[in-house]
């Protein structure tokens, strides 16, 4: 967002050095619109140029300093005044003085820590942005440029299946099983529902993905539940001994990784909700939490050294390490 007031004598904009090559991703804004932003990973350097353009060349522009900041912050919608900054870096580009012609300043934030993933939710937003400012006595000239950060993980060491027997005494007993407890965002949930006892008249069965966003602490905790997906897995009445398969492809849904207690401000968790509906529209359900994580793209030989560090950061893996070696060899060779 840029602030342009009447009579501004200068324009300021920020351009990244790798704007041509860096990947852009879609990210939903607060009002639901989708826009494209440059994608960064933890540990990557953010570098570029700040262009200060004078509207009337020849007319001097006095200023109290020119700077650029890299900010990572959490905004709670019900508490807009307080932004919680968890990353805040500044580079001074120019000391107080004056500019007589349009100028360009280089900047580099080296190996910036970006510990959390960008998130826009119902009550909270976590964003990263560059903010270039020409400080002036009455009103600053400011330009913000949002970027999107993804946090990557590798295949977890331990990924047990979820298997449980639940029911209502003497009426309905089922055993449900999901093949994993941790799924990546393009994964497939493979499972089954086995009917041990059916003394009610079931009409159909579905599995829902529910996203729960929790914001706030102590007495003022807000939970926002959102049903992201409803997927019918059975139509008709089952009997004892029947096994209903589940095959749910996650790539088709708008999901984020599980975010637990981010900076002690919010959480985003996902649940599978198994729902059985009987002939009288009564609903019987069982909710189960799953962990979602983001898998890095296929490790290509030309993957940049920095992104290789980033993808290895959470859980070490042989594949990432060899890619790292390969990238190091290519860069030095």
């Amino acid at each position, binding site marked *: 967002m840029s602030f342009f007031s009447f009579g501004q004598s200068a324009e300021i904009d920020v351009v990244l050095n790798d704007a041509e090559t860096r990947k852009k991703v879609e990210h939903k804004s607060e009002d639901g619109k989708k826009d494209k932003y440059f994608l960064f990973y933890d540990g990557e350097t953010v570098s570029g140029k700040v262009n200060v353009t004078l509207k009337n060349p020849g007319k001097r522009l006095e200023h109290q300093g020119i700077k650029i900041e890299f900010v990572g912050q959490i905004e709670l919608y019900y508490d807009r005044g307080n932004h919680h900054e968890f990353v805040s870096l500044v580079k001074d580009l120019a000391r107080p003085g004056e500019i007589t012609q349009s100028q360009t300043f280089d900047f580099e934030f080296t190996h910036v820590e970006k510990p959390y993933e960008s998130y826009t939710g119902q009550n909270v937003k976590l964003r990263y942005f560059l903010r270039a400012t020409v400080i002036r006595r009455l009103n600053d000239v400011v330009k913000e440029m949002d970027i999107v950060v993804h946090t990557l993980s*590798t*295949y977890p060491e331990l990924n047990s299946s979820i298997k449980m027997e639940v029911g*209502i005494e*003497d*009426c*309905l007993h089922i055993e449900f*099983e999901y*093949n994993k407890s941790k799924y990546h965002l393009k*994964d*497939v949930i*493979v*499972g*089954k529902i*086995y009917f041990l*006892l*059916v*003394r*009610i*008249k079931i009409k159909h069965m579905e599995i829902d993905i529910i996203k729960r966003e929790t914001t706030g602490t102590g007495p003022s905790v807000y939970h926002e539940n959102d049903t992201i997906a409803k997927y019918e897995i059975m139509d008709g*009445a089952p*009997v*004892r*001994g*029947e*096994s209903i*398969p589940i*095959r749910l492809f996650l790539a088709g849904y708008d999901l984020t990784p599980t975010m637990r207690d981010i900076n002690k401000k919010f959480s985003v968790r996902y649940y599978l909700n198994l729902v059985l509906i*009987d*002939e*009288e529209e*009564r609903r019987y359900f069982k909710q189960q939490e799953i962990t979602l994580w983001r898998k890095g793209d*296929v490790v290509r030989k030309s993957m940049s050294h920095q992104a290789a560090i980033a993808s290895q950061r959470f859980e070490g*893996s*042989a*594949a990432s390490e060899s890619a790292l070696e390969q990238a190091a060899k290519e860069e030095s060779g």
Partner: protein
Amino acid sequence: MSEPAVADTRRLNSKPQDLTDAYGPPSNFLEIDVYDPQIVGVGRNRYTTYEVRMKTNLPIFKLKDSCVRRRYSDFEWLKNELERDSKIVVPPLPGKALKRQLPFRGDEGLFEESFLEERRAGLEQFINRIAGHPLAQNERCLHMFLQEESIDRNYIPGKV
């Protein structure tokens, strides 16, 4: 790491179903019919009773086949008992039709054929909905309503 590029979507292993389970009668058979309205009594003190016949294979019901006669106020009694004692949301009964009890109507009032049919259908829907509810099945009032000759209004409420 040796994770495949394409996920394994094969079905999980499951026990084969026993053929008697697959082709036998389902364990959830429950049918209740409300029919045969009969007018009882004389003059101003007449009322209608309906036959309530239940067929089931649910073990929670003592009788697999039962037949009783009930009137509208019995259904009301059942609804009140369930609303008080159980946690369920009790479905609505067909209307009380107080206007039909007033004199000087052009038709048969409470004993009008079309009205009786409407009421019969509503009572049938009501009792089927209730009887299939796992929580209602635990209530003694339901079992007494469906399977005992007469309703003892001084019974001790409780769970089966």
